[in-house]
């Protein structure tokens, strides 16, 4: 029920303080319902698509969240990075890694299956 558009390359800023607000490989860029017809450039080499046919969009929306300083108050919610999570593409199981890097598309069965492949952004 959900498809995730994930960046397949690093963008960067030479200022380390600003680089945390540059999108990186593995960041979720957009989430759409199953069957979404992605744009002409929403594929390799710029993007991967992860399909989660049994997962609701609302269950994965958290992967679009920015990283908040845990020391800031609830009222402040100081943003310290453009994303809180990213898909750890480099450490995917061998078959999944080769599939996503070759085909640009990976289908997973459950949100838990996706959760365990995600690390702090």
């Amino acid at each position, binding site marked *: 029920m959900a498809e995730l558009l994930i960046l397949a390359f690093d963008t960067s*800023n030479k200022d380390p303080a600003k680089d945390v607000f540059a999108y990186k490989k593995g960041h979720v*860029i*957009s989430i*759409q319902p199953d069957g979404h017809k992605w744009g002409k450039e*929403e594929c390799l080499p710029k993007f991967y698509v992860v399909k989660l046919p049994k997962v609701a969009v609302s269950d994965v929306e958290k992967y679009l969240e920015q990283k908040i300083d845990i020391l800031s108050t609830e009222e402040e919610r100081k943003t310290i990075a453009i994303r809180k999570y990213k898909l750890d593409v480099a450490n995917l199981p061998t078959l999944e890694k080769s599939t996503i890097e070759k085909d640009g598309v990976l289908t997973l069965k459950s949100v838990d299956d996706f959760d365990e492949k995600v690390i702090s952004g």
Partner: protein
Amino acid sequence: MANATKTVKSSGGDYTSLNAALAGQAANLTTNCAGTGGAGILTIECYSMSDTTAANTGTGYTTSASYYINITVPTAERHDGKWNTAKYRINYSSEGGDALTIAANYTRVTGIQASQNGTYKTRRAIRSSNCVGVILDSCIGRIAGTNGAESNAFLLSSSTTYSYKVVNCIAINPLNIGFSFGEGASPTATVYNCTAISCATYGFYGYSGRALLKNCVAHSCGTSDFNSGMGATGSTNNASEDGSAPNTNEVSLNGIDLTDIFVDAANGDYHLVVDSPLINVGADLHSDTYAANTSLASSLDIDGETRSGTWDIGADEYVSEEPEPEVVASSIFRGSIMNSFIVR
């Protein structure tokens, strides 16, 4: 120059969200725009759709005054000077966060509608921090949803030198501030022909002397239409209900109902009515230094109509809808056929 154009469409385009276009094209535009191998302007055209993903340029771009991100909505796909659910719009409904974030210098945004529809008290429709040369032109920023007591339709802030131009824009924000400007050099922001009505606190808010305001209007705001002292030297021809409009040539709207000024303010239509007190009381800014590279330099208002004569205050220029001349053709036979045309 290697300019490039990418499209955002619900189907058939290069991208299906503005955010994907911004992430997918992030690069050094002064050396390699959109993979062309040359410096260029990256134009991202957004077509009619509801874009539900928050858009963020990120900081992965290198830009300059000549090579920059140009986010635009083609005229046929653009709002008509009021919130339009048939045209391109960012409709972001996450609890918090900002609908459109600009973190790349010199970014130009024209014709965008952005709405943050969440529930958290601090969120923004359009936000930019620590940038120089950013231009917001003919945009509508809206805070909807609930709470939002610290949410601004437009928030342009920094603690250091930065610069913004905001022209022909409308803030719709019943929950807090319409346009909010932070610290920096004076003026940090030039704000021309913008409209902020019925904001819960301020229509326009900023640090002392930081915003150069011309032809702006605020009315019925909870705390003050303009906060005291925010206007930079040179601010002129602004209008307020409560006498807070900065500097010279203030237009007083005291005692004048919104219904006598705008077509349907209650529903966010800030086009001017025929006898609006904002008509013909603004300054002509088409040759103003800070209007360069904006629609004001071409004497256009928020919906692309031409400003003429003495300009109006606010995002809309009143243009009378004169009826088409009635042409009556009659044939009179007096030995020969004579056609006469009467134009009424």
